[in-house]
Every structure is written in structure tokens, then in C-alpha cells.
């Protein structure tokens, strides 16, 4: 699960495969702004073939949080 979510992050934010996942925080990590957030949501929805709820999109403030949220859909 974590790797599937990370693959989407890596794709959208152009991350190095060895990037420190703990540093991925919304509005703090370079590039993860509101535009990237929309792209990221779309990528996760495609990968997991699901539709995220509004609250999940608002709560997705870090990579760890994203993994936790995607458990519900994966």
C-alpha cells in the first residue's frame, strides 16, 4: 500500500525513489502546492479506482496521512 501511494507521489512531485517520505508535508515540501494536490488526488483516484471524499482531500496533509486514508479505498 505504502509503495503504491508513494509511486503516485513520486510521479506527481517528481521525487527521487529514495526521498525521505517523512518530509512530504502539504504546503511545506517543495512542489506540493494546491495545484499539485489536485493532480495527486486524481492520480490516487486512478490508481485505486475510487473517488475520495471531501474530508479525505482536506485531511491529506502528509504522505503518512495519505497512506492512512488510502487504506480505506485499497
Amino acid at each position, binding site marked *: 500500500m505504502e509503495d503504491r501511494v508513494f509511486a503516485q507521489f513520486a510521479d506527481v512531485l517528481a521525487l527521487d525513489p529514495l526521498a525521505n517520505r517523512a518530509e512530504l508535508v502539504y*504546503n511545506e515540501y517543495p512542489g506540493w502546492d*494546491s*495545484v499539485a494536490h489536485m493532480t495527486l488526488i*486524481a492520480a490516487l483516484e486512478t490508481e485505486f479506482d475510487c*473517488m475520495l*471524499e471531501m474530508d479525505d*482531500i*482536506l485531511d491529506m496533509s502528509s504522505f503518512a496521512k495519505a497512506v492512512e486514508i488510502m487504506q480505506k479505498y485499497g
Partner: protein
Amino acid sequence: MTILEQCFARPPYSIPAAEREALLLGAFNELTAHHHAHCAPYARIVDGYWGGLRAADSLADLPYLPVSLFKMRRMLSVSDDDIRVTLTSSGTTGQAVSQILVDRESSMLQQKALANSLMHVLGPKRLPMLVIDTDAVFKDPRMMSARGAGVLGQMRFGRDHAFALTPDLRPDIDAVRDFLAKHGDAPFFMFGFTFMVWANLYEQFRDAGLDLSNGVLIHSGGWKKLVEKAVDNQVFRAALKDSFGLIRVHNFYGMVEQIGSIFMEGPDGLLYPPNFSDVIIRNPVTWELAPVGEPGVVQVLSLLPRSYPGHSLLTEDMGVIEAVDAGGDEWMGKGLRILGRVAKAELRGCSDVIAAEAA
């Protein structure tokens, strides 16, 4: 539960005026004390102009700042290190812009509040979304502005986004037809700035035979440019209904200085403040509270601003409270109509930038 959590726990526009006044007063007094303790310029204003810190007896008794103050100086009530987002108003070239400093907590509360307001009219599911704008508005950094931020802020409440306009603001009829072919048979979400919805959707597409009857349109940005065309809310609604079968239309009123607090248009055409907010109308000569039905200057209150002292602001808009608790169960509190700008206030509003370009 905090007062704010209580407000969030109920349908977002449902707390009647008297109950709201009683529920919110303590929380607003606490916010005034918080800003007084943590923002030195605010404390000087309260001490110098309002006779010092004291608990207000009513919401109308709370100290208020002119909204233009945020153009003149940086004001914050948290440490500089905690600021995550700096929001700026959409001043046109040469005009000072407001700077609103938002920390993580305030930012999350704003998002939550905005989500509650939009879900109230859109439903809990994210709908396919037709943006009445161009995607260049946020893709092209030269165009990034309050308008781009506004579009982006709304986009997260939709999915499968399509854009009705090309980068030079011509109608993209193919994009709109593709969108309707895919999503037109079930509820979908449309967002645009009021002036653009009129000039770039209605005026350009009105004879295209588009069926938007499943759409829910949310629009904002002000009517100033439309007043010149003699278009008011009634004309606007009638035109969209006649040309597109579009009947679910909600205007909203809000400002960057109290972002997250969305005064949403209810079924009676009036703008209702969300549970954690309120509106007060003041006589522009005496600054006393104006009674229901009497126009005056609009003062807005919101419990959200904690990182900057913007919880009680005198706007540069004229308005009137036309009814109280009259919009039905889901639409309680004061029903506001905005009448225009206070004379001599500078031209401002999210769609003005484009209004000038498009004119």
C-alpha cells in the same frame, strides 16, 4: 466541544439569529482578548480607540477594524515562523493589496468551513465540474492571482474538471459539449466569477442550445461590472433559466480577509452567514446599529481568524438585512443583500481584474 466545533456540527447555515448571538458572543470576546494579547498593533487600536479590552455585551458591541487596515500593515497574532500561507487580495495594479497571514490551524479551519458551505449546496459527493474560466488562470504563473487561487480553491470540491473558456477567454464549445455528453445527465458542479459567468458563459453560449438543467452553479466576485449592463441577481437568474434550464444557482459573498466564511445565497435570494459568522449593518453617519431593512455599511464577524486580528471587520460594502430567520430551516440568521461599494472605496473584487481585461 468548542463553540466552533458546535457550529461545524450543525447544518452550516442553520443557527437562528438570537441563538447565534448568545452562542457566539463568548467566543468572540475570547478572540478579541487573544488578539489583544498577541498582536501589539491590534492592542494599541483597542486601547486607544475602543477604551481598552473589555467583554462586549453584544456582537454589535465588539471592536471592529476597517478592512483597509490590512493593506497598510502586516498584522499577526502568532509567531512569524508559524505562518504557512500569505493570502493577498485582488487589488488591481497600483492599488495596495491586503496581506492576510494564515497559520496551519487557521488554514485547516478555513478549508473545513468552505467544505461545509459548498457541500451544503452540492451534496456530500464530489461532482464532475465545469469551470467557467480557463485553466491558464492557474497554470500560467503570470495569471496567478486571487482569481486563480479562487478557481483552485473551488476545484478540489469537484472532479473530472473541464474548462469552458480558452486562455484568451473565448468559449470552448467543444470542451463544454464533451463535458455535457459525459456528465450532463446527472448533477454536476459549475463555478465561475459572476461577471465571467455573464459575459463569457451566458452572452457567448446563450444561443448554443446547451442543457445545464442538472448543473449547480456557484458564483461570486461582485456585481459592479454587471450594474453597468443593468443586470442584477433577478435578471441573472432568469437569463440562466431561460437559456440553459439552469435553476440551481447560488451567489456567495466573502472576502480574503475572512476567507472560509462564505455568505451563501439561500432560496429567497438573500445571502446567509455561516453558523460561526454574523453580519451587522451600521449607519454610515452615526456608526450605530442600523435596524432590519435599513441600508448601511456592512460589518462582518467570523470566528475563524486566529492568526491575524480579522474576526470583526468593517467592509467597504453597503448592504441591508432584509429578513431574519426567514429562509426556512436550513437558512437561518440574518439575510443580507449587498447594495454596492461605499462611495470612494477603491475598485476591488475577484472578477474585477478580468473585468478590466475583458472590457
